[in-house]
């Protein structure tokens, strides 16, 4: 036993050292010049679909249906619990011979749940649904030193509250109300010589909407099944455009309709210290529309899916190691504007590798850590995004965690 403990200890030390170094490097990215960006593709559509924000789930490839995004996941909940996540992200974009790095440090999510009598649970939280941060520069214009610099900041968030019911200690069903709110601000600047700039236009977009989500899960010692359904999301979109030089504002209101989503997951634990999971999320969003006055336009989004595979191995009762893989196609296309035969249909495909672990915090819970690497490709641009997610999870008074999903 002693060699095994020593090996475990060494592995932990090496792992902690690696994570520390990785975190330091990523923080250095962020501090070098904190230009916030989740993806260079975020200027299109509603932006990137934000991660669930739970480091434990992220490390397993993010099977959404097994995360707290599923209102039916709360089968086992002994006492009030919460989790708070933050993430550090860096994105390296490559287009032609150019490469550019952007960094981002931000809070990701907050979730809380508490058991009520008769096996019911009350839960809520704040989740990031779509990210719209981006930061791009143009080429020099018209043989001069002038360039456009466009930055976008913002996103769409869900304020969540729901009720769940645990049945027979194995089945959970739940319903969740989401108040969807968000906003973004795009600054269009026109750079002038000597480092000065002219801020030409600002476009601010506010989003608001409501939706319900229902979910269910079956969790047993050997295997688990989970699914949730999110019906059509209607967003009221108000756009304010300020043309600075002209000192003119204009406002427009749209009605954006985003079709339903489905998410499924399955997990199996063939032995007590090892588990596997599969996740599938379907976003059949080709029917997304934008309505203004009497006209309704198709947004041109696509029916897409996201699949994931993950595995978890407990080195000992306190130290799990998680790995995962995910693949998805984004719901909107990249633009291929500069191509001579311009065609807008250029899907963005994403492959992700996920790693993670947990560090126990005595008498509190755990610090879940995940590191993810995504490779995104379209025919015009590719990007590699790294994401380090830290989740501080307060759960049971310190004891071995018997549950696998939820809290």
């Amino acid at each position, binding site marked *: 036993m002693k060699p095994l403990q020593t090996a475990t200890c060494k592995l932990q030390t090496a792992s902690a050292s690696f994570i520390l170094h990785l975190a330091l490097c990523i923080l250095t990215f962020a501090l070098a010049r904190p230009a916030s960006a989740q993806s260079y593709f975020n*200027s299109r559509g509603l932006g990137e679909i934000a991660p669930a924000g739970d480091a434990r789930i992220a490390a397993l490839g993010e099977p959404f249906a097994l995360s707290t995004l599923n209102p039916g996941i709360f089968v086992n909940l002994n006492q009030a619990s919460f989790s708070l996540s933050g993430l550090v992200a860096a994105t390296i974009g490559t287009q032609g011979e150019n490469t550019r790095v952007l960094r981002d440090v931000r809070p990701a999510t907050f979730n809380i749940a508490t058991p009520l009598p008769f096996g019911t649970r009350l839960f809520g939280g704040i989740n990031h649904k779509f990210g719209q941060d981006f930061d791009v520069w143009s080429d020099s214009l018209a043989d001069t030193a002038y360039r*456009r610099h466009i930055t976008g900041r913002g996103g769409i968030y869900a304020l969540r509250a729901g009720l769940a019911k645990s049945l027979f200690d194995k089945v959970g069903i739940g319903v969740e109300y989401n108040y969807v709110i968000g906003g973004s601000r795009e600054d269009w600047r026109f750079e002038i010589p000597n480092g000065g700039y002219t801020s030409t236009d600002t476009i601010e977009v506010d989003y608001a909407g409501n939706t319900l989500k229902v979910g269910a899960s079956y969790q047993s010692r050997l295997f688990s099944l989970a699914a949730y359904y999110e019906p059509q999301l209607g967003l009221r979109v108000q756009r304010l455009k300020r043309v600075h030089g002209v000192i003119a504002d204009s406002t427009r209101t749209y009605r954006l309709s985003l079709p339903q989503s489905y998410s499924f997951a399955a997990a199996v634990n063939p032995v007590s210290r090892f588990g596997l999971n599969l996740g599938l999320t379907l976003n059949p969003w080709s029917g997304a529309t934008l309505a203004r006055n009497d006209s309704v336009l198709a947004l041109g989004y696509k029916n897409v899916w996201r699949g994931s595979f993950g595995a978890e191995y407990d080195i000992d009762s306190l130290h799990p190691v998680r790995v995962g893989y995910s693949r998805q196609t984004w719901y909107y296309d990249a633009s291929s504007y500069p191509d001579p035969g311009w065609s807008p249909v250029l899907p963005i495909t994403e492959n992700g590798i996920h790693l993670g672990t947990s560090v126990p915090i005595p008498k509190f819970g755990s610090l879940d850590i995940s590191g993810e690497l995504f490779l995104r490709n379209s025919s015009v641009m590719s990007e590699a995004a790294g994401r380090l997610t830290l989740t501080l999870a307060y759960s049971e008074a310190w004891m071995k965690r018997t549950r696998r999903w939820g809290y």
Partner: protein
Amino acid sequence: MKVFEILDSRLQISRARLTLTFALCLLTFALFRCNTLPVGYDQVRDRVTGASDTTLVSDSAASYARYVPLGGSSMLYLGRDSAYQSRLIIRFSIPDTMVLDSITAFQLVLHQSDSTKTMGFICRPCSLEWQENGVSWQMSDSFNHWLNPGGDYLPDTVAAGTIAGDSTTVDFRYVGLDSLRRAAIRNAGIIIFPQDTGIVAIHSGATAATAPRLRITYTNAGKETQRVISDIADASLIDTIATRSNPLDLLVGSGVAFRTWLWFDVGSIDSSATIARADLKFRPEMKYHRADTITLGVSRLKESYTQKGANARYESLPSGYASYYVPADSDSVVRIDIRSLVQLWTSRSDTLRNFGLLITAAPEWSPLFRFRIPRTGENAPRLEIQYVLPPEDRFR
């Protein structure tokens, strides 16, 4: 000892790790520091509606000269040469109750800005009252002309001397004058005439320490006492023969104000465009200058020049300024940023009509200069504009 060795060894490993981490961070910083390469711009390019460069030449141009009031300036000019002559008009607050019998000395003190120059001068009483904010070579105030251009004066010389060094003090003949002339000096002040060729700059009353003043020495209870009376109004009266130059010349100058009016047709620029850059450029032909740096201003006309000519009103605060160095070391093109002005013309054309612009000296009492702007050719005025149109919406 072994314990110390182990500790020392561990400490060294720890240091090495720290150094490695630090180096890694520095390397990361160096390799991945933010650049501004155009990665991802294609994703918004279909929302960019356009950025354009355009260069306009003036559709109309004219020039006029005007004797402008030069009171209230920080510097007064005294002298004459082949192109200009300048007199000084100064008024002091001399009390009419002054007991003249006790006065032992009555002196005029002037301070020069360039102590290397000299200039002979004489002073005569001014015979007509004038207003500092309206006095010029031709006008005693905003409404009344001098009987004789250059100021009306009595023939008596009340002081004479030579300006040299930092300050000059000359005897001022006030006590010996009759009451009529003393009253003229009290009410209308004096005019100082140059006697030599060249132009010197005298500090005006804007700065108390160097203001023109009268220094009076008198005996009070057997004791010699001095009293200083600073000026209360002063101005340069400047004339030039250049007003009789070719009327088709586009001139800009100070002292006697030469102003050039230009009109550019910016109607082709969309009203929703943001003007990113608007530079008025031309290469002047210098005709006269007494300083190596001259400052120009561009003002927006509020009325039609074609209808009102030189009487067309314009914004008193220039929309753009530029300093021009004579002679220029590298680039002798005058470049004036008038972005805000062009933005007004294009985006508020319904309320603020484009009546053109005036190029003037800024201020017009600055050291004397005059240049000509070519009407045609590569050195003629041109307006280089770069503008951008608003982007398309994210959802459309």
